[in-house]
């Protein structure tokens, strides 16, 4: 397959060489257009975030970041991610395992439900929790009697974030787990491994890269979520403001240095995520190619080194 692909690439290159003169021109125009588009709509704004953040000097930048309310928002965001990501890893592994390794009724429904947060507007996700846990909600009075506050407090933020981030890990793992099948686990069991040992030694290593990729995406979303969190947070400075909410608040309050300083942190997170994601994708592709090559049906047999 790879060779067929190379052949096709080779053909198109030859064609452009012997083809009409405008081909390189068209190519050049297309590349410049996409480049220009990315420059105007992505690169300049991104650079601008950092430029604005540092406009009044590095001192002002760090001063803005060390503002107690800002620090509190960073802590809250980190806390939320620290709770949501592990929970979603556990949930994602369970769900992917169930979908990939078992046949059961309602499997299609489960997959649809896992995708639900992707299709629902985050605002709705927030409102769901207000309806359930808010003072006017179903469980509100019961919770209020026991002095448990969920809405306009940290638990609400965590719940809303959980909701919007839970497809990421499962979605990444399902195809990987489906591709690996159950043979290796069965082999481990015939060799005496318990279910737990099989999971840690065989299942997890074989889905490692997919899992890491899922975690990265999940983490990025958990830290960056605005809509759902905004509905349940209550925007109490220093208490229920996450980083995205803090950015909005500072910006509305005409503190552009502060707003852009926090925004630069979020942008930095996005950049790191992007680099890691690209790297993992590259790794996965290599592993996938290796797995395909190791498929016994397609393997090329090296009879000479075969000392039977």
């Amino acid at each position, binding site marked *: 397959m790879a060779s067929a692909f190379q052949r096709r690439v080779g053909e198109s290159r030859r064609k452009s060489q012997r083809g009409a003169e405008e081909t390189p021109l068209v190519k050049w125009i297309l590349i410049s257009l996409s480049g220009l588009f990315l420059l105007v709509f992505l690169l300049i704004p991104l650079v601008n975030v950092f430029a604005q953040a540092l406009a009044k000097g590095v001192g002002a930048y760090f001063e803005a970041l060390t503002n107690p309310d800002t620090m509190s928002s960073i802590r809250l965001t980190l806390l939320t991610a620290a709770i949501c990501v592990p929970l979603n890893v556990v949930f994602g592994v369970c769900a992917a395992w169930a979908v990939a390794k078992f046949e059961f009724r309602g499997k299609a429904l489960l997959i649809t439900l896992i995708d639900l947060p992707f299709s629902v507007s985050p605002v709705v996700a927030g409102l769901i929790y207000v309806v359930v846990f808010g003072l006017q909600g179903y469980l509100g009075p019961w919770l209020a009697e026991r002095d448990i506050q969920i809405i306009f407090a940290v638990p609400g933020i965590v719940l809303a974030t959980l909701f919007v981030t839970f497809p990421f890990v499962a979605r990444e793992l399902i195809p990987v787990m489906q591709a690996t099948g159950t*043979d290796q686990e069965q082999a481990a069991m015939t060799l*005496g491994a318990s279910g737990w040992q099989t999971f840690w030694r065989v299942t997890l290593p074989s889905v490692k890269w997919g899992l890491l990729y899922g975690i990265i995406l999940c983490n990025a979303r958990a830290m960056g979520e605005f809509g759902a969190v905004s509905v349940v947070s209550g925007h109490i400075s220093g208490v229920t403001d996450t980083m995205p909410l803090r950015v909005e608040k500072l910006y509305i309050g005409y503190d552009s240095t502060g707003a852009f300083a926090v925004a630069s942190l979020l942008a930095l997170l996005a950049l790191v995520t992007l680099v890691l994601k690209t790297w993992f994708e590259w790794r996965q592709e290599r592993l996938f190619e290796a797995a395909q090559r190791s498929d016994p049906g397609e*393997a090329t047999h090296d009879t000479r080194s075969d000392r039977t």
Partner: protein
Amino acid sequence: MSIQLKNISKSFGETMAVDRVEFTVAEGELVALLGPSGGGKTTVLRMIAGLEIPTAGDILVRGHRVNDLPVQRRNIGFVFQNYALFKTMSVRENIQFGLKIKKWKRSEIESRVTELMELFGLQGLERRYPHQLSGGQRQRVAIARSMAPKPSVLLLDEPFGAVDAKIRQELREWLVRLHHELNVTTVFVTHDQEEAMEVANRIVIFSRGRLEQIGTPRDVYENPANEFVARFIGVMNVLECVVKGGQAHAGELSFPAGGAPDGTQMRIGFRPYAVMVSTDLTQYPHRARVLHTFFLGILLRVEFELPSGLVVRGRMTKEEYGLLGLEDDREVSLQIKNYRILARDDAPLGSELPSPQPTPPHIAENI
């Protein structure tokens, strides 16, 4: 007795995959479970391993009932059809996996792995990953891995299915040698009757979940228990015949019908080697024409067409073919030496019968 199956059944929902199967495998035996795909042989193998739970019946390994013993504690080695090597582990890590799980001492693991590497001809491949191995190497790693914890029984599911023909032949011979050296009770599944005949001490034949026959390769070939076995093991000519005047007729050919009344439908079967041919058109009672010759190596398969259009398959060596001076479209005379009444209104299979015509000495025997 190493493995004993007592009245084992397994159903998946409505379908009966295995239906009241009973057989035993002696200590140190090499047994093939043979049958067409969907015959239930893999299910039987997986039940012995503990990967499937029988719906009914008992499985005993070395006299102990293992029905309720989980797969981890049955002490079996299982080689999967596609080998199921751990892709994230090197050859060495694959082989020592079972030993680490069973908490062998480090030094013992080292010496066991080294021993297996040598025995399986895998030296120098310790650090390779499964995707860097050839099909034959992968299979040997899979067997080495399953043998590492010294299992009491080795089970192989279609062990030669995933490699090409040349390596398959080498692996068969190698498996026989290995079994000879280690003498571990071995059961393997195959759908290839030639493979089963060549490798196994005994063959267990399945079809549609039922056990059809157990016996040595020679047994099942020469004394098939029923029509299915007769047709499945080796090549067989099968003719649909109608009885008339005590003879079963198909085209020009007729066979004594063994007392069946006129009008009975019956099937007559005979092996290709029972077809006697001569270029002397008066030597045998039936005229035929050489329709096509298939070169299978040392043996040739020759199709003869009788005037009625009936086609009979014969088998002879290259030498016989040359001596007879046969070629496609050549006129010959032929006769069937032995035949078997396969089915007479579902009666059990009878034994092989000689044809009544006086048989002149076979031409090849006169050389």
